[in-house]
């Protein structure tokens, strides 16, 4: 077993265990912190795949941004320390039906797919330059549109928060 | 600037019966005695009248006059039956620079005085202290609870002359 596969299985274990904890934990705060580990594991996967820029963006956006926002939300909206923040199991039957359908679709698509392994990239280190030039040349319109979309979201959030 | 006598005349004219008279006074101070339930009204007048403008309550002090009949118990401790408590208001005007002393005397058994906390905000805490220490109840006070002693102190009012230390406080022996 090479170090690479060892690292892969280690990250996979982190993702699976922490994702399981996210879903099953009764305490929302625990779920949030487990989610941080999941994000970390996913970032590790990206790094193993040579997509270091994606890995780092994953950390910046999800751990630094979204997770912090979630923690803030949980910590500030509850009356602090006096009520336990718990989740429960509700609507078991409808949920299991939907989950069953979805997993059926997923299993079918996975088993019917012909998996191919991509060729190893020559220089996975310099992904940033590639991403930059693609974004700024081929996909410039989409990139700018995304920027506008985010700006609209930002203005909307600010105007809602002001009320 | 007005002398206490002049202010007394003004008050007497305005409030009549409620202004009882010059309390007996010695040493430097001329106290005007006011009826317990009229003090707030007098206070508003003193504060707002354009000639008087007593805007500053310097000090509100309560005391046990020790005028009742002294009854000695078997164990040597004593208490006073009847008697009076009094509250003394030192007020002055920061603009006209005159000052007077008001005095209110109430019987110990039913010690109730109109609060002046809305006239001079300063009286808010001073009245709480007077309640805490001497046990005078101020009517219409915004927050008439103990201030210096514990909120659940039930051994009486410490500055009364016949106050006795409790034997226990919250299960602890006093003095420990």
């Amino acid at each position, binding site marked *: 077993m090479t170090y690479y596969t060892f690292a892969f299985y280690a990250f996979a274990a982190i993702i699976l265990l922490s994702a399981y904890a996210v879903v099953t934990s009764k305490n929302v705060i625990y779920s949030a912190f487990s989610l941080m580990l999941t994000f970390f594991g996913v970032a590790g996967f990206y790094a193993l795949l040579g997509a270091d820029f994606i890995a780092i963006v994953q950390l910046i956006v999800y751990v630094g941004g979204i997770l912090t926002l979630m923690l803030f939300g949980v910590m500030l909206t509850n009356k602090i320390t006096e009520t336990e923040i718990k989740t429960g199991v509700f609507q078991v039957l409808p949920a299991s039906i939907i989950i069953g359908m979805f997993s059926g679709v997923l299993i079918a698509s996975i088993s019917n797919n012909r998996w191919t392994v991509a060729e190893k990239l020559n220089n996975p280190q310099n992904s940033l330059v590639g991403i930059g030039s693609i974004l700024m040349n081929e996909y410039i319109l989409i990139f700018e549109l995304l920027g506008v979309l985010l700006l609209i979201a930002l203005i909307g959030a600010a105007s809602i928060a002001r009320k | 600037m007005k002398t206490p006598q002049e202010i007394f005349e003004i008050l007497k004219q305005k409030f009549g019966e409620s202004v009882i008279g010059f309390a007996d006074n010695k040493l430097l101070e001329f106290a005007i005695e006011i009826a317990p339930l009229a003090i707030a009204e007098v206070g508003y007048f003193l504060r707002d009248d354009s000639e008087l403008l007593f805007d500053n309550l310097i000090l509100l002090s309560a005391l046990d006059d020790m005028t009742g009949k002294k009854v000695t118990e078997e164990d040597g401790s004593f208490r006073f039956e009847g008697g009076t408590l009094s509250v003394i208001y030192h007020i002055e005007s920061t603009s006209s620079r005159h000052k007077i002393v008001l005095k209110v005397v109430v019987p110990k058994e039913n010690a109730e005085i109109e609060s002046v906390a809305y006239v001079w905000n*300063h009286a808010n805490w*001073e009245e709480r202290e007077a309640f805490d220490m001497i046990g005078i109840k101020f009517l219409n006070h915004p927050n008439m609870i*103990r201030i210096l002693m514990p909120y659940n102190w039930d051994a009486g009012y*410490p500055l009364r002359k016949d106050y006795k230390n409790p034997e226990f406080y919250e299960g602890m022996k006093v003095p420990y």
Partner: protein
Amino acid sequence: MSVLKTEEMILNMGPQHPSTHGVLRLELELDGELIIDVKPHVGYLHRCFEKHCEALTYPQIVPYVDRMDYLAAMYNEFGYAVTVERMLGIQVPERVEYIRVIMGEFQRIASHLVAVGTYGLDIGAFTPFLYCFRDRERILSLFEMTCGARLLYNYIWVGGLSHDLHPDFLRLAKEFLPDFKNTLSELNNLLSYNKIFTERTANVGVLPLDTAINYGVTGPNLRASGLKWDLRKDDPYSIYDKFDFDIPVGQGWYGTVGDCWDRYYLRVLEMEQSVKILEQALVQIPDGNISEAIPKRIKPPEGQIYTRVENPRGELGYFIVSKGGLQPHRVKVHAPSFIHLGLLGELCKGHFVADVIAILGSIDIVLGEVDR
């Protein structure tokens, strides 16, 4: 859009908290970081001073008054001595009056140094605090040299003093004053005019003059709100009429009149005025016997008296009722800190949590005096 339901958070500040200046508990009602209400809970240091007084003779009370405002113990004694002397009708020798004024003004400087230094500490500046304490130590050494104690002196007695001055006292005191002026300018450059400091304190906790008077605020806090009211000039006692000094008032230098910066800076200006008084007193002090007016037995006539002096924190008044015995019938103290603390809730509303500290520091309370 529906209104979101929010709940207030109750935060207990104290009794053990680094910046409540003693054992004070503040119950803060918060909406996020904004203050909705502040409820001070006092009494953790309550010793029933007034009850003790009823069981002690008049001279025995002197050491007890030290323990009220322990940062200005000299002035507490000064006020008490003046009160009882007025009851008895004693005239004290001129040298005693001079020594009392010297001690009183040194005490005012020492007390204001603590106020100003700890105020810097509350805002987060540690260094000015130690500069202030360095100079305060020199004043305390002068006191120690005079009466053997650094904090609670039992020095000013009814009718006189416990000791005369140490032979070196005048020389060392005169040496101290120029050094102290340097400290003041250093303090001003380091703290008073610091941009962050003025941002933190200007326009914070504004106390309008009518509110101040209505709440019975006195001393530097009242003067910072703009009223020229100093008992040393307005209700003279001792020999303050012999000295030439000004009464600084708040002018809203960096913001509104009566904000935290004004209250802070007024103390700095008052220290300058104290230096001015000291410079005159240390030169003019006459020789004489300091103990000739001390009565053997103090038994004031029946009656009541209220006398007030300008303590570093405000108007310190003693209301003494005598029934003609050796012990007072009732002693009630007009404690400036107690009154100023009653104002805190009013000042803090609508400010941030951090401002509570700034406001509490600027009104300069001593818990020993609040609880007595």
